[in-house]
């Protein structure tokens, strides 16, 4: 099995492994559904860590679950495609897979570490069983012995002693359970790992350890990560690129340091302002007044307009598209959905126009 494991050197970055295109997700089957994702496009490259940030309820988790078709009822995907590039170079649309193909692809291609560290493990099975059942399902040729060895190996990978295999979930601490989940996610050496707020329920020390571990494992095993969190400061440390979501749309995406040092969207700026900076001089914490809009009601114009300190007339009638700014030559990866950047540079608020170094 370890022969199929790509060494980090062979991972070419810049090649997309997961491309989400114009994904539309509704809640509700009736005639008047809530549009929770509105034409979201996102690309994840091989081996990179993509951070997905925003306030709770802005659709980050929905995006991840919809892309893997795990969104519970009454979620429904009404448009778009999710293209996954297999190791052999073939590209499949996850949304078009049959149930059988999807089952076979799951965990092999994309593994997920869920939000609730406490409830992700089946309380009535031992850790060993939960680690081996997934391997046995996808690698039916393996013997009992090989399965057990692999399970022990996985636990060691995340720094847990293999005697814990005999434990039941309730006998493990929260941090340990989350490590078990990470070990489980790596069981089939997937190309993509989705981590949905993997550290929220943990204390600060544990958060740090888990984040360091993920960074370390990624370097050793070379998988790509979608890291979902509402804690932007955490992302700065782990992510290569960051996408900021608001009200079911991506409003800005760029490299991590670009987003952090010179946000271009007023929402990104507000979001960064609500966390203390990790380095550099202390500044006053802002926070954003108000809360995200109710998606059950139709939104005219930019969804952020009501909370945006710089909103002008156009923002209330036209929803801005995601596009490059005047700095496109200097930061080709940056996309921003904001009408401000159509204005003459002099009229754009100064905190959104910091020049790339």
């Amino acid at each position, binding site marked *: 099995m370890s022969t199929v494991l790509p060494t980090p050197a062979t991972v070419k970055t810049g090649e997309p492994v997961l491309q989400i295109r114009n994904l539309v997700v509704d809640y509700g089957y009736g005639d008047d559904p809530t549009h929770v994702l509105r034409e979201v496009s996102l690309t994840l490259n091989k081996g990179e860590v993509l951070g997905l940030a925003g306030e709770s309820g802005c659709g980050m988790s929905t995006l991840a679950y919809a892309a*893997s078709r*795990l969104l*519970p*009822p009454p979620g429904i995907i009404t448009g778009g495609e999710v293209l996954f590039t297999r190791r052999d170079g073939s590209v499949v649309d996850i949304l078009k897979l049959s149930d059988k193909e*999807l*089952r*076979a*692809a*799951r*965990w*092999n291609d994309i*593994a*997920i570490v*869920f*939000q*609730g560290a406490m*409830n*992700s*493990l*089946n*309380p*009535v*099975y*031992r850790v060993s069983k939960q680690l081996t*059942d*997934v391997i046995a*399902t*996808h690698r039916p040729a393996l013997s009992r012995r090989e399965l057990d060895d692999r399970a022990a190996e996985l636990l060691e990978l995340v720094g847990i002693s293999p005697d814990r295999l005999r434990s*039941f979930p*309730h*006998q493990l601490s929260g941090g340990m359970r989350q490590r078990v*989940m990470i070990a*489980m996610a790596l069981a089939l050496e997937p190309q993509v790992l989705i981590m949905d707020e993997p550290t929220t329920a943990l204390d600060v020390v544990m958060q740090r350890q888990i984040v360091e571990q993920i960074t370390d494992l990624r370097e050793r095993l070379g998988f790509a990560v979608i890291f979902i969190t509402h804690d932007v400061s955490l992302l700065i440390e782990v992510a290569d690129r960051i996408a900021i979501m608001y009200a079911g749309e991506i409003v800005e995406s760029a490299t991590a340091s670009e987003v952090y040092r010179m946000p271009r969207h007023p929402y990104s700026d507000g979001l960064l302002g609500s966390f203390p900076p990790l380095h550099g001089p202390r500044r006053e914490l802002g926070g954003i007044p108000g809360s995200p809009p109710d998606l059950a009601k139709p939104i005219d114009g930019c969804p952020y307009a009501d909370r945006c300190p710089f909103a002008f007339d156009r923002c209330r009638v036209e929803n801005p598209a995601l596009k490059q700014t005047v700095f496109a030559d200097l930061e080709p990866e940056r996309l921003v959905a904001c009408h401000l950047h159509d204005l003459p540079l002099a009229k754009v608020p100064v905190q959104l126009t910091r020049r790339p170094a």
Partner: protein
Amino acid sequence: MRFLARRFIFYVITAWAAITINFFIPRAMEGNPVDALLARYQGQVSPDAIRALTVLFGLDKNQSLWDQYVQYWQLLFSGNLGLSFTFFPTPVATVVQQSLPWTLGLVGLSTVISFFVGTLIGTAIGWKRGTWADGLLPVATFFSAVPYFWLGLLAIMLFSLTLKLLPAAQGYDPGLIPNLDFIFIGSVIQHGILPALTIVLSSIAGWMLGMRNMMVTVTSEDYVSVAQAKGLSERRIMFGYAARNAILPQISGFALSLGFIVSGTLVMEMVFSYPGIGFVLYQAVSAKDYPLMQGVFLVITLSVLVANIIADLVYTLLDPRTRQEG
């Protein structure tokens, strides 16, 4: 094992409470009906039996309550529950002893069948939620609201009187002598089918609905989503992850509602004149045979307690969290 120890203490207390209630009920009533019974059977009741009834029903008003209570316990430990007047002069203990196996066979078996089948169907409709399977819900609701005995009456009308398929009453053909031969056992089965089916039919809906709701609740748990994300087979997720967890509250529900179910099935025996303890209770009520009524209550309660202990043991086996030390 702390969990089991705690449960065991609880059952001891419950048994004590039931026996004590049984002790106080006749003493709290105005006038004493047993006096009247004794007067009617004057001369036919042995002095020993009179003494037992005196202790059981507190006929001797000169004794202190405490002395009565102590004597009552001594009597129970000697297995003496007094004398039945319906089956005069058979002791209550003997009547109960003869009828209990019938009830255990009929009620026990059909309740267990109903629980398993109902839980299985509930698992399926909870899993297939939002499909045609939901159409079973109104039907199940209707059946869960029907009194057991009325369904029994309908079953007799349909299968015994109209279709003449199965016997309507008794536990076996009255022309046979009870022994363990082929004909007798065949007769017992033949007589048991209709009451058993009726008990299953009327109690199954409760298990179905309960399990369905638990399945719906459990399927939105994270570990079920994880199982889906892992690409496990549908069967494995449905049984190993969803149903395996949903059944835990179902079993504690089983333990708690046993008292209720047993009450319903007792009446079923009355409808089918089945020679079990429910029918004995019915005869005791009709004849105002108080010693028999009280004895039957005690035995039913203790049987339910034993069933509860079994359910708890099963629960402990299924839920590792209860096996935790300390």
